[in-house]
């Protein structure tokens, strides 16, 4: 039965594979390679508790004497062996990268989701309703654009940290990061969606929907939104890379993830102190991972933009 159905209607995956986008993907080696790298890193992060040989977030399991073990060599005091070496606290760099990537990716995805929901909603409202709503939303967006996103994120982080009770600070740090990066990044989405909405709202299908008496919210959600999603998808991909870098930047500056739960940025911050003294691996491996992750997502976003642009087909 299942076999017969599959013969008649190809599976979703199969259809996606044979679509225009799928064809374009198969013929872009860069996109294929990027996807491979991103998937590999995401799988590594998700399965970190099963793959990682050590648990770097459990301070009780660390042995300080393992500190500064070079990659692929036995520690001079304990004789322990670490694939990518250890940092200054005796944390296994490989395990810490896997766990750190979990934080980086989680913060990245969640922040982009927040920025997307916020930006798309406000963009739709501004574009469709116009008038005062549009003026207020877009002026706020303009004002926010004049500040660098990282500054806005630091500001939000600082305020949020100030109002959280100290005993919850370490647990809240991740959520505050998401909030800070998400709120600093919604403007891109709002601008693009507003622009596209302005175009779409004068199309016949919207007029028709208005005529049959659908509510403005139904029109925005069911009719306009699906038609403005393509550019949103492209921005979301590129924003993801930027959000991961923003998280790394904040943690590098020491205002992000707590030092006992290092993300990629925290690891790079720790590592750069030992740049001159020859302990290169503490900096190199996390930085290379961050680079691979951000670059792959960016390349993927580039490809998606080109593939979805009808003029470039």
């Amino acid at each position, binding site marked *: 039965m299942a076999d017969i159905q599959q013969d008649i209607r190809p599976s979703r995956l199969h259809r996606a594979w044979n679509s225009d986008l799928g064809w374009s993907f198969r013929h872009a080696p860069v996109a294929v390679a990027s996807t491979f790298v991103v998937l590999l890193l995401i799988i590594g992060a998700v399965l970190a508790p099963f793959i990682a040989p050590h648990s770097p977030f*459990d*301070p*009780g399991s*660390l042995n*300080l*004497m393992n*500190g*500064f073990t070079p990659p692929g060599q036995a520690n001079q*005091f304990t004789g322990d062996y670490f694939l990518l070496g250890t940092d*200054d*606290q*005796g944390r296994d760099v490989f395990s810490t990268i896997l766990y750190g990537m979990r934080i980086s990716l989680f913060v990245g995805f969640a922040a982009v989701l927040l920025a997307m929901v916020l930006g798309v909603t406000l963009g739709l409202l501004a574009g469709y309703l116009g008038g005062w709503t549009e003026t207020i939303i877009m002026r706020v967006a303009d004002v926010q654009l004049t500040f660098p996103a990282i500054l806005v994120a630091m500001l939000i982080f600082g305020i949020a940290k100030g109002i959280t009770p*100290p*005993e919850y*600070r*370490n647990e809240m740090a991740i959520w505050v990061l998401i909030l800070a990066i998400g709120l600093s990044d919604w403007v891109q989405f709002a601008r693009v969606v507003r622009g596209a909405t302005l175009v779409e709202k004068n199309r016949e299908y919207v007029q028709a929907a208005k005529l049959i008496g659908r509510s403005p919210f139904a029109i925005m959600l069911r009719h306009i939104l699906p038609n403005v999603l393509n550019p949103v998808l492209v921005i979301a991909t590129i924003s993801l890379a930027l959000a991961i870098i923003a998280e790394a930047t904040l943690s590098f500056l*020491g205002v992000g993830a*707590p*030092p*006992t739960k290092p993300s990629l940025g925290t690891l790079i911050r720790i590592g*750069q*102190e*030992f*740049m*001159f*003294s020859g*302990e290169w691996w503490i900096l190199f491996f996390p930085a290379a991972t961050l680079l691979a992750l951000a670059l792959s997502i960016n390349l993927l976003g580039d490809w998606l933009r080109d593939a979805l642009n009808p003029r470039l087909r």
Partner: protein
Amino acid sequence: MKKTTFLAAALLASTSLSASAETLRWARAGDSLTLDPHAQNEGPTHTLAHQVYEPLIIRDMTGAFQAALATDWAPKADDPNVWVFNLRQGVKYHDGADFTAEDVVFSINRAKSDNSDMKELLNSITEVRAVDDHTVEFVTDGPNPILPSNLTNLFMMDKGWAEANDAVTVQDVEGGEKTFATTNANGTGAYKLVSREPDVKTVMTLNEDYWGKDEFPLDVTEIVYTPIQNAATRVAALLSGEVDFIQDVPVQDLGRVDETDGLVVKTAPQNRTIFFGMNQGADDLANDNVDGKNPLADKRVRQAMNMAINRDAIKQVVMRGQSQPAGIIAPPFVNGWTAEMDEVSTDIDAAKALMEEAGYSDGFSIQLDCPNDRYVNDEAICQASVGMLAQIGITVNLDAKPKAQHFPLISGNETDFYMLGWGVPTYDSEYIFNFLVHTRGSDRGSWNSTGFSNAEVDQMIQSLASETDLDKRNATIQSIWDVVQEEQVYIPIHHQVLNWGMTENVGIEVSPEDDPKIKFFELD
């Protein structure tokens, strides 16, 4: 490849040197907290003040007494409760005003006032009186043989200048106050303040009318002082010739700096101990997960924590050998220190047993406040301690921040568990007791954020100031230490080792106080 970068760096360093032979570009991790000379009793704050302001007596770069604004001093012949100071004549402040006995009376009274952080050093003084323009008498409540050593960081301000600029009262640092004296200075010192941007840059220039023109080298004619918090950036600045002198070479980069042509590292044990303080006096802690009681109030918990810290591992890995594990919060320079009290060992099993005995076999969680720009590898030590305390079930949430935010927590009694380092400019235990052991009160205990309070100990501490029989005094010091050690008021970590990095032409030895006084610097 590596050789060429070394060469390039050396070349860069030497060319920039010849271009700035008289300017000393000086960097360290953290900035002075304020220019108000009596507002903060803190090392880097005093160090910067020493260039501009002067006390009556200073310690030279080896730690020996030297006459500064006073030429000589002695107890009064017929009254042992009075010290007489003869002041240097013809000294002028940078704005041209004369330095007189009136300024001394004003400055000492200012340093004894409410907001002052120097009160503990002066609490034996009942009156300061000007006999004539260049003679001052200090009246103490009972004979105080060590009074002069309490005055080496007590700077003399100009009364007229302070009155004209609304700076008569000491800046209230905990209250977040800023006054004219916070960012301006008018001293008698060898260098005049040209500009000051806190945490960015401070520029000073040679005082042409300095009284000691013929007594000191005064080779440096301009000082550019820039705090560089990040360790790697600080070293890079020295390696690239951007600065001539850094006060805190990161331990991991000692070899790299010393091997570089044109640069030297000078190392000496510092008169400073790094330790943790625990709020044992409060009924309940603000930042723990135990309700209704204070786990740190239990001596067994404090002892367990002390046993859990592996100081040798911290020395080996975090400090790369550049520290001396400590069992007492007094450095070996200090009168009252004994090798026996300084001994300490790690015993996780015994620590766990003590935790169980105290009823905390499941542990508890607590916040540790730690500076990240004050002591050598301060944050890394705290992080390592988080791991060590986790082994006896204590979950430590680490909050590391710049000292400008960290120190107010301690002086404001707002922390449960904190890192502090204490240097002892008087070389005597009394200084430690006055600030760190005596019950917190109006004129003593201002840095004792532990809540430790013992009336008998307080009594003994107060008796030290006027005890003239040295053997008896030392016996009292020993019995105070016995209580402090037995009660485990603090968890000592180590005595710090100083590493100064400089270009080869800077001729200066490391001072145990970590307080370079630039007027002593010789440049070839």
